[in-house]
Each structure stands twice: as structure tokens, then as C-alpha cells.
């Protein structure tokens, strides 16, 4: 029996979709958090609801990173896997995210029916140096699962995991009670509890190792929240009163959360007939003076582009959340990517002015709506909040952020502007249209149009007037350029290499840079929360490093820079290269950043 003490460890529960792997993960997570441990959770979800069991597309699961310190990302490699059968294991091993000493508990229940497949996968594990500990669910538990119509296995696995991670059985039982106590009938609940207990006992008898992560009692109120829920709460706190959206993965859960809660905070949720209608309704509401927001993902973003361009010309504020998923086209709806950047920066036709902010974690998600509303209403331009599948769905425990209860955007607190590395905008900003009166205002009657107009709002096709409209719109964006201060940096102020990322890449960059520091590597990291426009100071910062590279979950190669690299190149004229530009659908890993940093530096010194 070995107790392995770890500062940080990562494990996975892999099952077929529809059998409750994420639910088991949630319960475990609550128990961990209750014990004062830090966790970061990434669910793995197929794009389909219930793909056929025991097929590769059915893989569903949860990755949990457990630490005695605050973790900012899902980490590097998995130390331990519990798999419900060989097919889910084989599928997940293809991602190559396991440690060389990774141990695997494999349920052998399906072996009799699939002996060849099991043999093949077991051979693969041996070949890759992975130690597999086979086990069978005990007979009484199998009978219970049968009685529950094939469900309940997740509770059995939860029992096993609870033992392996040195959890107090009673604490976990308490969490199960919280989750299912009110939802399940008494007898069904009892059977689930029995399965949990049996799993715990099985692990006690059969598994000869446990992992121990120290707990550090924490001060202050803590919340457990995922990115999309934090965005939803931020929308409410920012004083937005209408949400209009169309169902799309991975943005939909924002609409689900608000549909339940918004009316109690004076807000309406409108499920539109399509993506275009959703933004049209936001524009109508904002023209009427009522703050509103829409959210979408890649395909919906493409559909909304004409209205986004219209809003900037009509000078109607628009807030659009883009929860990015893997593209192009329908792509991989439940995988993460950061490749919508060109579409938001260059998307709509003609000269196109906008502001793009991004979120790196759940706290950013909570404050992004305040920031977006401030920018959208001050500038009367479209403002994007860029999230992605990973940030939208990952859970984290955080100290409860300060609630702002914003009504007037001028009251936005400094700490939110600071978070996005921006100074306050000037009080008065010139608009194309002198009057911005809201309907209902006596004597302020005015028309807005997508046609070019003069300052009075009258349609006008004369050269000078059109040039003025462009200048005024672009000057609004220049105000943001000038207000942006030094972005968040990790590591030395100057050196051999600067690694730049945006959005969800922050956690991995931060952790990688602390690893670099420990290893004496002279590299620094930079994270951009506002991605467009870029701060004017950027060129000065770049000049202090020998080489500038980006890390992105987006495609790029030697002949085609990845989106952020392309943007930085054209805005700074520095020879920015894509160091990691992979559209694998998997989050960036700190370890890979460190390895690439070493490679890049050794190439440079050669």
C-alpha cells in the first residue's frame, strides 16, 4: 500500500456519453473543494447527445486537476485514468496527454463480449509503458446497475476514486446527498449510495496506491463556477436587461442560465428564430436605450456580420459574446479553439471599427460584460467578448468576486478597467451623429441608417462627408488604443524570448513562465485581454526581447502565421512567429510551452 504525496496531480474518468461521468466529477469536485483543495475541471463532451455506446465518438468524461495551490489551467499530463471499458481508453490515449508513469484502472466488464478489442488495447498500454490495473465490478453491484436500468456505474467509479484520492467516505456521501437527495426516489437513491459504497470497498481491497494532496484551509467566501455561468452573472451585474440568442454550442448554456434567473433581476431572455434575428433584436433594444447582449459561436458569428457592420454605422451599441469552438464551418462543436480572431477583427464588410476583449478565466468572465458595456456605450460601437469552449465549460473555485451592480457605465469601477489593462476613456467622445437621442425624448427625433450620413444624420453620398464618418469612427478606436496600458506580463522585462497569447492561453503561459524561471530560462510571457485594438506601448515592449512568438489554439504553419501572430506582425512590424499554433481542439499545456521555448532558444543560439 503506497500513499503518494503530490502537490499537483491530474486524473480522468472516462465513460460512454450519457452515463454520468461529468456528474460523478461534479460530486468529487465539490468534496475536494469542501476539503480545501484547489481544482480545475475540464469536462470532455461529445458533440452528439447519445452516440452509440462502445464507439469512439461516445467518449465522454471529466479531467480533474487537483492541487494544493491555485491552479489556472488544466495542466500537462494525466497521472491516473479510470476507464469504463477499453474503447473509451483507446480513444483518449490518442490525445497523448498521459504521463509515462500513468496508471490505468480498466473495468473488464465488457471483456467477455469483446476479447480481441480488450487484448489489443491492453497490448497498446504495455507497448506505451502504461500500467493497467484490471478490475471487475462486483456481482451484487452489477445486479444493482441492472436494476437501475444500466445507470449507477458512475457512482461505483466515484466510490473508487474517493478511496484512491484519500477522501473521507462520509464527506463524499454528503455531497451525493446534496446532488441527488431531493431528485431521486428513496429506493433508487439507496441503490446509488450502495453502489458508491461498494466501489469504495472494491478500491480498498484491490488498489494498492492512493494519492494524497495537502489541503490548505482558505479564507473568505468561495464560489464554484464555470465560465458561461460567470458570464451570465456578469450580464446581470452589469445592468444588461435583454438577452437575445439562438441555440449554439458552446454558448447555449448562457441562455439556459439566464432563462432561469434573468426575470428575477428585471431581465428578459429572447430565443430568436435565427442568429441574425438575435442581433437585430439587440440592436432594436439598444436603440431604445436598453442595454442588451447576444452570444454565439463561430457559425453564428458569420451570420451576424452584416448587422455588426450596420451597428457601427448607425452608432448603436452592441455586445456580442463569441464562445469559440473548433472551426472552420461546423468544425468540432465541443472542442476548444481560438481561431475566430480574424473573423471578429476583419469580419464585416468595408472599413470596420470594433473593440475585442477576451476572457482568460472565470473572474474575467464575470467582469467582461461590465467592460463590454462600458466600451459599447461610450463608443457606440460593436464590442466582442471572446471566450472559448474551454473557458466556457471549465469549473474553478475562486474567491467570490466583488459584485458591482452597475447601472450607469460611467460608474464602472477602476478595478475592472485595471483588470483589462485600460485607463478610463475621455468623457466626451465625438460621434458621427451629433444627436444620440433615445426614442421618447421630446424634440430629439432622429433616424439611423446604414447609409452614410452627415453629422445631422441625413443620408449623404459626398466624398468629404464619408471620409469624415470613417475618421470619427476610427478615432473612437484610437481612444481605446491610447487608453490601453501595459498588458499583463510574466517574467523578466527583457530577454531572449517573449511568448504572447490571448484569452484562455493565459493560465498555461503563466504556469510555463514560472517553470522557465525555475529552470533559469530567460523567457517572458505576455497575455492580452484586449485583443483589438492593441496597446500603443506594444512595440516598445517587443523591442526589449530578441524574439517574439505566440501560443494559440489555432492553425498556423511556416507559410501562414496563426491569427494572433498575423495580427501582431501587421500591427507592429516585428517578426512575430507562431510557436504553438495547433488546432487540435485540446487546451495548450504549460509543459509543451516550456519545451518549445527551449527548442526556440536553442535554435536561436545556434
Amino acid at each position: 500500500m503506497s500513499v503518494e504525496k503530490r502537490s499537483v496531480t491530474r486524473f480522468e474518468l472516462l465513460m460512454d456519453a450519457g452515463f454520468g461521468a461529468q456528474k460523478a466529477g461534479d460530486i468529487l469536485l465539490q468534496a475536494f473543494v469542501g476539503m480545501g483543495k484547489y481544482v480545475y475541471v475540464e469536462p470532455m463532451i461529445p458533440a452528439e447527445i447519445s452516440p452509440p455506446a462502445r464507439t469512439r465518438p461516445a467518449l465522454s468524461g471529466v479531467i480533474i486537476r487537483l492541487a494544493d495551490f491555485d491552479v489556472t489551467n488544466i495542466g500537462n499530463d494525466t497521472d491516473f485514468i479510470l476507464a469504463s471499458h477499453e474503447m473509451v481508453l483507446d480513444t483518449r490515449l490518442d490525445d497523448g496527454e498521459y504521463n509515462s508513469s500513468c496508471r490505468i484502472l480498466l473495468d473488464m466488464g465488457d471483456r467477455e463480449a469483446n476479447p480481441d478489442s480488450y487484448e489489443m488495447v491492453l497490448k497498446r498500454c504495455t507497448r506505451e509503458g502504461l500500467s493497467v490495473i484490471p478490475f471487475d465490478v462486483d456481482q451484487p453491484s452489477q445486479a444493482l446497475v441492472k436494476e437501475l436500468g444500466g445507470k449507477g456505474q458512475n457512482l461505483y467509479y466515484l466510490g473508487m476514486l474517493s478511496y484512491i484520492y484519500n477522501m473521507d467516505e462520509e464527506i463524499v456521501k454528503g455531497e451525493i446527498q446534496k446532488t441527488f437527495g431531493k431528485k431521486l426516489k428513496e429506493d433508487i437513491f439507496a441503490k446509488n449510495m450502495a453502489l458508491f459504497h461498494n466501489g469504495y470497498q472494491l478500491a480498498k481491497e484491490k488498489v494498492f496506491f492512493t494519492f494524497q494532496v495537502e489541503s490548505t484551509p482558505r479564507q473568505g467566501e468561495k464560489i464554484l463556477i464555470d465560465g458561461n455561468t460567470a458570464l451570465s452573472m456578469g450580464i446581470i451585474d452589469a445592468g444588461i436587461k435583454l438577452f437575445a440568442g439562438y441555440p449554439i454550442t458552446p454558448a447555449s448554456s448562457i441562455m439556459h442560465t439566464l432563462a432561469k434567473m434573468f426575470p428575477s433581476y428585471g431581465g428578459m431572455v429572447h430565443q430568436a428564430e435565427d442568429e441574425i434575428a438575435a442581433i437585430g433584436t439587440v440592436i432594436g433594444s439598444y436603440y431604445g436605450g436598453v442595454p442588451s447582449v447576444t452570444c454565439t459561436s463561430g457559425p453564428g458569428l458569420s451570420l451576424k456580420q452584416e448587422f455588426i457592420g450596420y451597428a457601427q454605422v448607425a452608432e448603436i451599441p452592441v455586445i456580442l459574446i463569441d464562445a469559440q469552438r473548433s472551426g472552420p464551418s461546423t468544425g468540432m462543436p465541443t472542442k476548444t479553439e481560438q481561431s475566430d480572431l480574424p473573423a471578429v477583427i476583419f469580419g464585416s464588410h468595408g472599413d470596420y471599427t470594433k473593440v475585442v476583449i477576451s476572457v482568460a478565466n472565470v473572474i474575467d468572465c464575470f467582469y467582461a460584460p461590465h467592460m463590454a458595456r462600458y466600451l459599447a456605450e461610450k463608443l457606440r460601437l460593436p464590442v466582442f467578448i471572446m471566450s472559448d469552449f474551454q473557458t466556457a465549460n471549465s469549473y474553478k473555485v475562486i474567491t467570490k468576486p466583488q459584485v458591482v451592480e452597475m447601472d450607469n457605465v460611467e460608474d464602472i469601477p477602476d478595478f475592472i478597467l485595471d483588470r483589462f489593462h485600460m485607463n478610463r476613456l475621455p468623457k466626451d467622445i465625438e460621434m458621427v451623429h451629433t444627436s444620440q437621442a433615445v426614442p421618447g425624448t421630446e424634440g430629439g427625433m432622429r433616424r439611423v441608417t446604414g447609409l452614410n450620413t452627415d453629422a445631422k444624420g441625413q443620408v449623404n453620398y459626398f466624398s468629404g462627408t464619408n471620409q469624415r464618418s470613417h475618421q470619427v469612427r476610427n478615432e473612437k478606436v484610437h481612444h481605446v488604443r491610447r487608453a490601453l496600458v501595459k498588458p499583463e506580463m510574466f517574467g523578466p522585462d527583457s530577454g531572449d524570448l517573449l511568448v504572447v497569447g490571448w484569452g484562455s492561453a493565459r493560465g498555461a503561459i503563466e504556469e510555463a513562465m514560472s517553470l522557465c524561471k525555475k529552470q533559469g530560462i530567460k523567457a517572458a510571457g505576455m497575455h492580452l485581454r484586449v485583443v483589438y485594438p492593441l496597446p500603443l506601448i506594444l512595440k516598445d515592449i517587443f523591442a526589449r526581447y530578441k524574439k517574439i512568438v505566440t501560443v494559440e489554439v489555432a492553425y498556423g504553419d511556416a507559410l501562414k502565421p496563426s491569427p494572433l501572430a498575423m495580427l501582431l506582425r501587421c500591427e507592429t512590424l516585428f517578426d512575430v512567429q507562431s510557436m504553438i499554433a495547433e488546432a487540435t481542439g485540446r487546451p495548450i499545456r504549460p509543459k509543451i510551452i516550456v519545451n518549445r521555448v527551449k527548442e526556440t532558444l536553442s535554435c536561436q543560439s545556434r
Partner: protein
Amino acid sequence: MSIQVEPTQPQQPVVLKDLNTENPRWCVGCGDFGIIMGLKRFIVERQLQPAATVNVSGIGCSGRAPNYFNTYGVHAIHGRPITVALGLALTRPDLNLFVHAGDGDALSIGGNHLMHGINKNFKCVFLLYDNELYALTKNQTSPTTRKDHVTNTQPQGSFLQPINPLTVALGLGASFVASTADWIPDHLTSTMKTAFDHPGFAFVHISQRCPHFDPANFDHKSSAWFSFLKHDKGIAPDRRIAPKTTVVEHDPSNLAAAFKIASEGHRYFGLFYQNTAKPRYDQILRDLVARAEQKPRSKILDHYLI
């Protein structure tokens, strides 16, 4: 941004010239002049406050209409005025809302929104300017172009039977379907009035002349080719023109009869159908808020405490 609107001051009565902006940039003889004049006459007759009135439109000749009303206005993008109007209907029920769309705008590029606008039955007057072709883009076939009519895109003569906007609206469950014409001013204004008083999405089909591209359509000098609908609960036939044509009795609560006359191929002006009991989506969403227990934002994150 604030939506606090100044309290309404005692007003001078609204007169027609208060509603004018620039001279409309439409061709001489365009039916759109008649339509906006009809709406302006109604605004004056009803004394709607220009500051509390919003015209929303799409793209095309009809799309320009809001620019020619000294009210608030949104000249939006092609096919989507209904979506913008809904945003206003949801959040600003205090405003008088008129939506202007052409046949291409409403039935082609914006067909999806028409379907859902009708189904949502939110409060607005929806004016369908139907000149039976695309005019601003210079004479192309539209969803309502009559078969064999020559256009720039179908020079062999338009290929298909046109869509019938009235049966489409009735089939979608419209709570209000009326029809009128740009050259019958009194009837047009009466129609606006009945439509404005309707508690929901008032679908008003307007036959509109395009003398530039299709002068042969809609012979406004004769009246024998159309009829008026008449009923106590309907829109009164035009006093000036009715004696020169036929008047047909039709009960606007009779949906089956409405379908029948709308499908005949003969043109009728009047109220086809009205149902004031159909629920309104804008009202439903506002009621949800009104009925919900209001909670303080200060505790918004407490739901997630551990």
C-alpha cells in the same frame, strides 16, 4: 446611456408638416408617396407624438420611408426590420411602432423573420409595400412578381407563380390581416387606424405602384378589377371609390372565409381577418419579469457559494 425620458410637455397639436424631413428621393408617381402620406395622415388624426413614434424598415425603395418621417426611425438591413422592431417592442412598449418592408424584404430575404414576427404577434403595425418587383436594384423578379412578367433577371418572363402574401399571413396564424392600396388615401388611412388599434402584429398588405419599372401593373384609373370587403367589425370601403366597384360582405372573424377570398385571385381591399385574443410574445416576456420575485443583484453570486 439612460432611458429616462423627459416627461412629456404640453404639446402643440401635431400637423402634417411637422412630420416632414427632406423631399423623398422616390420617382415621380411612386406609390410610396401615397403610403407615407397615409401614415402621416393617421399620425395627425390620432395625434401620435413624433417623439414616441418609431418607424423601422429594411432595404429597398420602401426601406427609405423612416428617413422621410420626422419621428424616430431605424433604417436597418435588408430583410430584418422585424427583428429590430421586436427589440423595441420588448423593451419599450411605450413607443408607437411601425415596420415598413417591401415584397423582397418581407417575403424573400426576410421570410423567416416574417414567419416568426407573425407567430410572436408582438405589437406593431407591419406595412408590406408590395410593388411586385425589386425596384431599387433595378427591376428584378420578386416573390410576388406575376408569372411571365419580364424582368432583368428573368427576361424570358418570370418563371413561377407568385407567392400570395395574404394566404401566407393567414396560414402563419396572423392575428390581423388587411389589404389596401397606395392610391386610395382614405381607405389606406382607415386601414392604418384599424391596424394601430389591433393588440398584436397587424399585417397590412399594400398594393403599391411602380410607374418606373412596371407602369402597366395596378390600373389606378379604373376600379372594376378590385373589390372592397365590408363588415361592421371591418374597415369601411372607400367612400369615393366604392360606388365605382363591387363591395363584398366579409366577417373578419371567419378564418375559413378569409382564406377563401384571399385565394381567389381577385383583389380585395379591406380587413380579411382579426383575432384580438391571440397572446402577444412581448407581453408574455414582460409578464415573466413582472411576476418573478425580484431579487437584489448584490447576492447574485451567492448561488454558487461553497
